[in-house]
Each structure stands twice: as structure tokens, then as C-alpha cells.
């Protein structure tokens, strides 16, 4: 019973957060600038144009009424029509979301691989120069944000040694006809490995830029937890049984040390998704974040609003999922 109550409380706070996020977006976009219509219209619009738009968006009503109309529409998935692209915002956002999700997930996988390997290696070679080197590398990786890593990667692996693509999502010259917007998944399912490699060649640098800071965080926490585990009795027992150090670390210590890292990865994953906004811009990757920046530059308010809300929804859902996974994985919480 306890778990159901905890779940319901968690769901309620999620809803409160989402409602709060919607209010913030509404306030920032509708109330602060004073006259949103002026921002939506090209210079030289007539008074009649202004009046027509005002009625269209319900701006002639009171603020609470406006909010009600707006929130009801938003809840139904009606985010309005993009001013610059003249298409429903919902369709535009859904069209771009897969690109951002694929990039974020690839980045997450890279971060876990690099961070995890580094932590295991540092534990295996603890108190040696190798551990010291990994610590220093982790410290630098953590001090610099994804934006700077992206630029450094463009210079080194895009220009100096042009091994990977530095812009776009897929080479148009491949002439591959996608039926969905999940390019990577679709190419995999259709067994077109040339396309898969091309996609990964485009994704690798932006994904790496997003992954480096997270890999450093994973390294630090996992190494710390592993270090604590190595003093436990079952490790001594495994050692007396004659298992190799590598096998002890990966098979005995790792499963016991991994839980805090998993929770942290969940929380940090939202930061990683947030980083896609500028990283997509940097690599001209056609995802949600890149579209958001265009929308801001073009003052396309309905589109901005839609994208910000989708990000907020994504973030709260990831957080909810993390909490639930944590509860499911941690036996102490399950029976509490």
C-alpha cells in the first residue's frame, strides 16, 4: 500500500511541476513583453491586422481567461501554428523530437561506456600513476562544458584529422528514403549498415561533446563506490577463492557499487538533453534544440512555446522514470 501512496504523491508533484512550468512559459511569453502581438507581426502591420490577431489568440480577454484557453489547448496537444513555418507546432515538434532523442541516447551510451571503463580501470590500477592520470583527465573533463568540448572536437576530429562529419544528420548523397524520423533505428531495422555508419559518423562528435562531462561524473562516483566496496568481506572471500582482480571488480564489486551511479545518471541525463540545444546548433544537427534557436531568432512565439513545453515534459518524465526505476531496483525502498 505504501508504494502506491508514494507513487501517487510522486505523480502529483510531477503534475504540479508541469503546471508550474506551463505557468512560467505563459508568464515569460505573454506577460513580460507587454505586447506579444507586436513581436508576432512583421513591421508595417496595420491596426486591423493587430486586432484580428488579438481576437485569434484571445488576447482581448483577461490574463486568467487567456491562461485557461491556452492551457486547455496545450493539454489537447494544440500548440498553435508556427508563424515562420506555417505548420502546426505539434507536428513540427514531433518531427524533430526523434533526432534529439537518438542523439541524447547515443551520448548517454558513450558516457556510460567511457565513464564506466575509466572507473573500472582506475579501480584495477588503484594507487598507481594510471589512477592519477585518470583522475586528472576526469577533473579537466568535468571543468569544461559540452559547448567547449564540441568546439574542440570540431577542430581536432573534424578539421585537423577530418575523421567525422561536423554538420548535419545524414549525407544527402546516400539518397536513402526514410519513412520515419528515427533515422538510426530505421536504418538498423532495415539492415542498411552503410546508412547506419553514415548516421553514426554524423552523430559521434556531437554525442561525444555531450558525453564527456557526464562520463567524468560517472567516473568519479562509480570509482568512489567501488573503492568503498573493495574493503567489504565478500571481496576478501572472493580473493581467498582465487578469483582474478578483474573478475572480482566486475563480478563482485560492480553490482554492489552501481546503484548510486544509476540514480545519478538518471538525474544527469536531463542535463545532457538540455545540452543538445546548443550542441545541435554547433553541429547543424536537425533536432529540436536547433529548431528552438531558429524559433527564438525569428521570434516565432508559438513554436518556442511548444518546444519549451515539450522539453519540460521530457525532463519531468525522465525524472519520474528514474525515481520509479530506483524504487524498483532498490529492495530496501520496495519493502519500505
Amino acid at each position: 500500500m505504501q508504494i502506491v501512496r508514494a507513487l501517487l504523491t510522486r505523480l502529483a508533484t510531477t503534475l504540479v511541476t508541469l503546471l508550474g512550468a506551463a505557468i512560467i512559459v505563459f508568464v515569460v511569453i505573454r506577460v513580460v513583453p507587454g505586447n506579444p502581438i507586436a513581436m508576432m507581426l512583421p513591421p508595417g502591420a496595420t491596426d486591423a491586422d493587430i486586432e484580428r490577431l488579438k481576437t485569434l489568440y484571445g488576447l482581448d480577454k483577461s490574463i486568467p481567461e487567456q491562461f485557461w484557453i491556452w492551457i486547455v489547448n496545450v493539454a489537447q496537444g494544440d500548440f498553435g501554428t508556427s508563424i515562420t513555418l506555417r505548420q502546426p507546432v505539434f507536428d513540427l515538434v514531433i518531427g524533430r523530437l526523434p533526432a534529439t532523442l537518438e542523439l541524447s541516447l547515443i551520448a548517454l551510451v558513450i558516457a556510460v561506456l567511457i565513464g564506466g571503463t575509466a572507473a573500472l580501470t582506475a579501480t584495477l590500477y588503484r594507487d598507481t600513476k594510471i589512477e592519477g592520470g585518470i583522475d586528472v583527465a576526469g577533473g579537466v573533463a568535468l571543468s569544461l562544458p559540452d559547448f567547449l568540448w564540441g568546439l574542440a572536437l570540431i577542430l581536432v576530429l573534424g578539421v585537423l584529422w577530418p575523421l567525422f562529419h561536423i554538420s548535419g544528420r545524414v549525407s544527402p548523397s546516400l539518397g536513402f528514403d526514410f519513412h520515419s524520423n528515427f533515422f538510426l533505428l530505421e536504418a538498423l531495422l532495415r539492415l542498411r549498415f552503410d546508412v547506419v555508419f553514415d548516421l553514426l559518423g554524423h552523430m559521434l562528435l556531437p554525442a561525444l561533446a555531450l558525453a564527456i562531462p557526464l562520463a567524468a561524473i560517472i567516473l568519479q562516483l562509480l570509482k568512489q563506490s567501488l573503492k568503498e566496496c573493495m574493503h567489504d568481506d565478500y571481496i576478501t572471500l572472493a580473493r581467498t577463492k582465487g578469483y582474478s582482480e578483474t573478475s572480482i571488480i566486475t563480478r563482485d564489486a560492480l553490482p554492489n557499487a552501481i546503484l548510486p551511479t544509476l540514480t545519478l545518471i538518471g538525474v544527469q541525463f536531463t542535463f545532457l538533453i538540455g545540452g543538445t540545444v546548443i550542441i545541435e546548433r554547433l553541429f547543424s544537427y536537425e533536432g529540436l534544440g536547433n529548431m528552438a534557436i531558429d524559433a527564438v531568432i525569428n521570434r516565432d512565439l508559438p513554436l518556442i512555446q511548444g518546444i519549451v513545453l515539450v522539453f519540460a515534459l521530457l525532463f519531468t518524465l525522465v525524472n519520474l522514470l528514474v525515481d520509479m526505476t530506483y524504487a524498483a531496483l532498490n529492495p530496501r525502498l520496495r519493502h519500505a
Partner: protein
Amino acid sequence: MRDARGDIRHLPGLRLWLSGGWLLLLVLAAIFAPMLSPHDPLEQDLFAARLPPFWEQDADPAYLLGTDSLGRDLLSRMLYGARLALTVALVAGTLTCLVGATLGLIAGYYRGWADLVISRLVDIWMAFPPVLFAILLIAVLGTGLTSIIIAIVVIDWTRFSRVVRAEAMSQGAMDYVASAQVAGRSRFGIALAEILPNVLPTIVALLTLEMGIAVIVEAILSFVNLSISTDEPTWGGMIAEGRTSIYQAWWVLVFPLFALFLTVLSFSQLGEGLKEYFDPVLR
């Protein structure tokens, strides 16, 4: 005891000196930019466009670090760019710290409904990608230095309030707070005289970290052309220009990127070093 202390202090000491040294150099460069700059940072000379830095073959010694695609001197632009970067770092960093730390202190020490409201706000804030939030705010507020500073304070106060709240909560449970209460001090007096001094080391370390973040946010905003007016020299603007001409003139990207790298690294290392310096356990 002495030896262990020497070992631990050695590395942070070096870090503090190196990062402090670079930041001092930067402050001097920013203050004396008009005297140090060999050219007007806005002056264009299309006949001197995309000149490489001095060690390359076609270089012009009048342009030490080369020029961009409009023939503007990179060194002069970097020196002037340091002014904006440092102004944003100091002003936005300090204001963010004041707002965030105050709210964190209130939430962590006074608890009750104030804590409830502030913590909920933090949750809501965490639902937005910070870069997108900042860009959105600039779109609404208009470009300019004041807007950049407001945007940074608005997006980043949670970084301080979360940490300070947790610290204030643990300090509030300490015996010395209880004894101050018994001695009849007011809650406000305790918050200022007892809690704040104990949370201060954390705040100082976070503050330097925040200054580095502010520099990055400003660079990102200039990169997408939403910082101050487009002519004004900014590191982010130079990086954006360098990104587009990367195959023709790599130096346009490399120099401002290098400056940004060192500055952000210095701020974060300064923060780490100060944290260790202040930490009574490590000291």
C-alpha cells in the same frame, strides 16, 4: 600530521596560482584593452581579410594573431571581448550568488512554507533546459548587457539555493545553533551570525564556479547572436564567425576558443582550490 597536510596543500596551491594568474592577466587585459590593442577592434580592412597568425607564411606582423573574414584584428577583438566576458562573470556571478544563496538560506534554515515554495520553484526550474531558457529570456527582454545578466541570474539561482539549502539544514541541526537559541538570539541573528559564516566557504567556491558558467552562457548567447549588439567584439561572436570559416581560417576559431577554455578552466579550478583551502577537514 604536518607531512600529510603538506601533500594535500601542494596541488591546490599550484592550481590556485595558475588559475589566479591567468584571471589576473585577463583583468589587466580587459582594463587596458584600449592601450594594448594594436587596432580598433571594429575596424575592417577587406584587403587584410583572413590573414594568418604571425608564425605562418603569409602573415602580416601588424596583425599578430591574424584577422577574420572582414579583416578585423583578432588580438584587439579578443582583448575587448575579455571586457564583456569579465563584466558578465563578475556582475552576473555575484548577483546570481546573492539571490540564490539568500533563498537557499531562507529555505534551509527557516523551513516551513518558505522552504516548500522555494523547493517547488527549484523543481520547476529543473524542468527547463538552461540554454533554451536563457535564449528565450533574451528573446523576450531584448539583447544587451542588462538582459544577459538578468537571464543568467534567472536561470542559475537554483544552483546556489539547492546547495546552500542543504548546508543550512545540516548546520541548523548543530549544537552551536541550539546553544545560540538558548542564549536568546533571534532567528534572524542566528541565520546571519551563526549559519552564514559556516556556509560561506561553500558559497565562495560556488561563486567562482558560477563566474565560469556565466562566461560560457555569455559566449553561447553571442554564438547564436543574441548577446549584445552584433558589431561589438565578443568571444562567442568570434567563435561563431570562426565556425563558419573553419576550413579557410582555423585561427579565427582557435584563439577565442583557447581564451574561453583557459578562463572557464581557471574559474572552476580556482573554485576547487578555494574549497579545499577553506575546508577545515582538509586544512
